[in-house]
């Protein structure tokens, strides 16, 4: 389930809330904890001019400039995760052993262009 948060003044690139429930994906029979986690995702446009709040790379600024000159052949920069964090999961394996595993890059904390 995705919850869209209205952004003003326009739909600019930003992290959006996305809660992943292990029950919803049918993993509750082997995942012990957590029950779910705030995964989030990136969505929105990277319009010209890129403001500082959009966390644009130098490449994105150049691409935005070229896009403004040649919109047919050069797309706008993409809205992508620029900072991710990890989660830990407790689960049962096939032998009923209890496993604690640490997974990096599972939560989108920040997005940028």
């Amino acid at each position, binding site marked *: 389930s995705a919850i869209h948060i209205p952004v003003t003044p326009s739909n600019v690139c930003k992290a959006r809330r996305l809660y992943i429930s292990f029950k919803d994906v049918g993993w509750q029979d082997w995942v012990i*904890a957590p029950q779910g986690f705030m995964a989030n995702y990136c969505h929105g446009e990277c319009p010209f001019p890129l403001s500082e709040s959009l966390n644009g790379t130098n490449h994105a600024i150049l691409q935005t400039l070229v896009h403004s000159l040649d919109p047919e052949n050069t797309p706008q920069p993409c809205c992508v995760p620029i900072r991710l964090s990890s989660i830990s999961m407790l*689960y049962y*394996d*096939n032998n009923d052993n*209890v496993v604690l595993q*640490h*997974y*990096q890059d599972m939560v989108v904390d920040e997005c940028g262009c």
Partner: protein
Amino acid sequence: TNRQEQLLLRSLGLSERPRPAGSLQPRRHVPSALWRMFRRAEKLQALESQPCMVSEYGVRGNIVRYIQDQGRMVSGWSSSCQACLEKHLFFNMSILQPVEMLSLAHLEIKLHWKPLSPVQLLQGSQAISASLYKVIRSTLNGTNPKVNRRLLLSQSVQLQPESTSITMDLTAVAESWRKPGSNYGLILELLPLGPHPEEFFLFYPGNSLPLEQDFTFPLVQASLVAVSLNPNRCRSRQRR
């Protein structure tokens, strides 16, 4: 969806969706130490101070497993040792992926004991000798099983009423078990000490005490805590 699920499971280091015993058997108890580590990891995730360290054990790793013992009681009173109990311990190390680097394997054996007589109850504790052997190769029928064992540990233990623990670092041994066809497990030998060990009717075959109806938990309970590192899922911290 199945294909996407497969891709995600693979990225999580799982070849397929785990199928635990589920509703057919009672779920295995989650060790309190693992819960503590999980809660601590949840708090520290935002900081990411040392993402591939298991600080509880002071080793590098991103996977902690409590591997169950799959061995069986060899016999109540074995032929090789008239007054002792032998228990085969087997930990399936093939569940570790080849890419994983084993950082630590810590054996914990819990001996549950309940005094059976008023004398034992008054004494409060009972001394036993515990020996742990690595089985080097399988034993053929009729041959002396002790030839194929290497002693790892020998110590006397004071059994306390309810529960006593024996722990040992088994990292090197567990690493050797990862080689296919080399894991023959361990033998735990328990010998009651004292002037009349035969009166100390402590252990029975089958892991339970038949005389005590309320005494349902196993007498010898062993688990291997294995910490490993999957380097593919442990990127180095970015320079700023």
